[in-house]
């Protein structure tokens, strides 16, 4: 059992809205830990459109997704939040009362938190590997079909089919080629999105006869009892053939799924979390939902709406965490105490 991390606030999701929540909580002296399933901050802004300009952030006629995330990181620096990446919340358990909430939160990476408030800023849900819609693939998942490599050793001596043309596909091709019996890389075309040096290394291995490259698309799986024996492939000339393999790793990018949030005892409406518009609190006192993940009458899925929601949720969180503190509303432009917290003035 690992040590429990105690915190005032746990923010689920390190996208723009989760990051801004750190700021709003910080002004109220509330410390936050932030979790994300991705290995980096920024959520959709960094994952889907880092280079695309956003035109509707107040005060920024145009700013890129990554630019906004970088600015937010600078803005929350004074509050030094603790980030935990590659973590997905699996379980949320209430230990407190509606007046004094307390939650035990467990992640898939074996982290345990005790948080007085939980702020869900999970956007479209958690980014998860896209599963190819090949009939019966579930039967092979985690025995023969893997979407990520947890232990490289488990591929030793196996015939591994890797499907895809991006960095993940190429990186694992190069990493597993020396330990697998054989690595076969399959892609739909002879052009790769991956970094050119990885593509060159892969082509050298192919030329040296140390691995195979085949062009085509997967249409079916063969095997028994979760043990894969072959993948049926449609080649680009339309012909169908089988590739013998006992491990397969498809890399088709990421998609967003609500994930375990569905099991936290929260009311849901069409995969969104209904909240009130005063505090952006869910049906569970002390659990807030802000940004794209929430819904309420008139909801707009805009980053600016998420910022507003973060500010109001922080006010209510303040009352839970510091029930005896006198609430004085202050402006960062004029309050010397807020400026002290921000390390300015």
């Amino acid at each position: 059992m690992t040590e429990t991390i105690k915190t005032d606030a746990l923010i689920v999701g390190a996208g723009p809205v989760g990051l801004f929540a750190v700021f709003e909580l910080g002004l109220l002296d509330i410390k936050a830990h932030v979790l994300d399933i991705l290995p980096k901050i920024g959520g959709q802004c960094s994952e889907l459109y880092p280079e695309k300009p956003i035109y509707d952030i107040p005060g920024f006629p145009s700013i890129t997704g990554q630019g906004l995330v970088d600015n937010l990181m600078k803005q929350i620096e004074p509050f030094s939040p603790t980030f935990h990446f590659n973590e997905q919340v699996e379980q949320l358990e209430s230990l407190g009362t509606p007046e004094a909430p307390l939650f035990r939160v467990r992640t898939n990476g074996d982290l345990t938190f005790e948080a007085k408030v939980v702020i869900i800023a999970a956007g479209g849900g958690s980014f998860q590997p896209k599963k190819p819609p090949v009939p019966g693939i579930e039967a092979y998942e985690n025995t023969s079909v893997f979407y990520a490599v947890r232990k490289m050793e488990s591929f030793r001596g196996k015939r591994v089919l890797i499907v895809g043309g991006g960095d993940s596909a190429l990186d694992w091709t190069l990493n597993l080629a020396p330990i697998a019996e054989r690595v076969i890389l399959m892609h739909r075309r002879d052009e790769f999105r991956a970094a050119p040096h990885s593509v060159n290394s892969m082509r050298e291995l192919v030329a040296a006869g140390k691995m195979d490259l085949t062009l085509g698309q997967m249409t079916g799986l063969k095997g028994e009892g979760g043990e894969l024996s072959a993948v049926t492939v449609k080649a680009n000339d339309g012909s169908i053939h089988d590739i013998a393999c006992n491990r397969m790793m498809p890399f088709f990018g990421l998609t967003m799924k609500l994930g375990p949030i569905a099991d936290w005892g929260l009311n849901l409406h069409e995969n969104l979390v209904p909240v009130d518009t005063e505090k952006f609190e869910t049906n569970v006192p002390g659990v807030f939902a802000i940004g794209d993940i929430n819904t309420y009458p008139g909801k707009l899925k805009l980053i600016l709406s998420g910022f507003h929601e973060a500010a109001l949720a922080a006010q209510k969180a303040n009352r839970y965490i510091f029930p005896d503190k006198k609430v004085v509303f202050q402006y960062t432009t004029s309050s010397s105490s807020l400026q002290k917290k921000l390390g300015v003035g």
Partner: protein
Amino acid sequence: MVKITFIDAAGQSRIVEAEEGSTVMETAIRNDVSGIEAECGGACACATCHVYVDDSWVEKLPKAESMEEDMLDFAYDVRPTSRLSCQIRVTAEIDGLVLHTPEQQG
């Protein structure tokens, strides 16, 4: 108005009106055309607005750029006629365009 025909995997066809300057994906979403998801909202980042261009139109559309080809790697059952509808701009020239939506957007 430019007219676009969407034919779904079951063969059901629908004609919708498209505004010049918008994209085919936006037109599909605005008209609730089934089979187009557009998870990323048009950032060319998800491949869930995948369509097949009808054979009669393949030669008439501008070719896909490399970013679109890259993103098509994430789609399923990609064919030579595959396109991402967020990358097809509605112009007067494409009036009468016929597209087929795939069985699944992955």
